C-alpha cells in the first residue's frame, strides 16, 4: 500500500513536470522576431527600470519640448496600423511622436520623425530577437528624461497600456 501511494505521488509529480515543461517549451519557442530576446525586459510596467532615467536624444525632445510624451518606434509595416489606432485613442496627439524606420508620412496630428536607426539606438531600445529596427515605445517626462522604454510588437492594440505609462510619467 505504501508503494502504491508513493507511485501515485510520483506520477503526480512527473505528470505535472512533463505537462508544464512542455507548455513552457512551447511558450519559449513561440517568441516572435519583434519580441525582446529576454522577455523579462518587455513591458515591465514600471518606470525607471535598469539605467533609467536617462536623457532623451534631441531629435525626440525637439518635437515635444519638456512635457510628458511617448515616442513610438515602428517599421513601415506597422505605421498605418499605429496611426489608425492613435486617432480614436485617449492619447493626446500633442504628446505623441512617431519615429518610423526610413520614410515618414503624416500620422494624424502626431509628430513624425524618420529614423535610420540612430534615434532608436540613442533612446536605448533593445534589439529584437530577429534583429532589425525595434518596434516599441519610450515615455519621456517633463525634464526630457526617458523613464520607460520597451519593445512591443503589438503596441497599436495596447494604447491603453501606453496611456497608463504616460499617466505615470506625468
Amino acid at each position, binding site marked *: 500500500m505504501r508503494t502504491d501511494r508513493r507511485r501515485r505521488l510520483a506520477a503526480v509529480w512527473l505528470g505535472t513536470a512533463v505537462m508544464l*515543461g512542455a*507548455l513552457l517549451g512551447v511558450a519559449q519557442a513561440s517568441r*516572435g522576431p519583434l519580441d525582446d530576446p529576454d*522577455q523579462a525586459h518587455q513591458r515591465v510596467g*514600471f*518606470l525607471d527600470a535598469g539605467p533609467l532615467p536617462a536623457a532623451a536624444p534631441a531629435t525626440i525632445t525637439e518635437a515635444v519640448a519638456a512635457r510628458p510624451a511617448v515616442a513610438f518606434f515602428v517599421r513601415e509595416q506597422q505605421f498605418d496600423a499605429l496611426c489608425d489606432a492613435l486617432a480614436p485613442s485617449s492619447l493626446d496627439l500633442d504628446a505623441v511622436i512617431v519615429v518610423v524606420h526610413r520614410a515618414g508620412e503624416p500620422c494624424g496630428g502626431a509628430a513624425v520623425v524618420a529614423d535610420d536607426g540612430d534615434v532608436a539606438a540613442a533612446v536605448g531600445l533593445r534589439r529584437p530577437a530577429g534583429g532589425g529596427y525595434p518596434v516599441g515605445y519610450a515615455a519621456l517626462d517633463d525634464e526630457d528624461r526617458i523613464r520607460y522604454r520597451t519593445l512591443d510588437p503589438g503596441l497599436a492594440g*495596447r494604447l491603453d*497600456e501606453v496611456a497608463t505609462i504616460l*499617466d505615470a510619467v506625468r
Partner: protein
Amino acid sequence: MSRELRLCAWCLLFVAGEVALYVSYRGHDARFHWFTHFFVGAAAALLAMTVFALWRQRPAPYPLVWVLVGHVLAAAPDLAFIAGVEHQRWMDVFLGHLASHYVPGRNLTWYAAFLATLAGYLVAVDRVEARSRR
C-alpha cells in the same frame, strides 16, 4: 453533492481561474508573465501547503485552490495594471512581483523551484499518510 463532484468543481474553478489570468495579459508575451507568476505563486502555495500538512498531519484541502490563490497573489499588480495603476517597486510585496522577472535563468529557474516545492509537498503528504495508517 458527492465528494467527486465537489473535487471536480474545484478543478474547474482552478482551470477557469488560470485561463482568465492568461487571457488578462493579452498578447503572446503574456506567456512569459503568466509562467513567472504561476510558478512563483504556486511554489509559495506549495510551501504553505507543506507547512499545513506537517502541522495538521493531513494533506491540504482543495490543493488547486491554494495554487490559484498563490498565483493571484503573485499576479495582483498585473490585475491592477489593467485598471490603470502602473507598477511600483513596493509591489514586490506581492511575492516579488517585479524582482521575480530578473532572477537568473528566468522562467526555467522558477520552473525548477516549483518542481522542488511540489516534490517537498508530496513527500510531506506521503509521510503524513504513512503515519495515519499505523
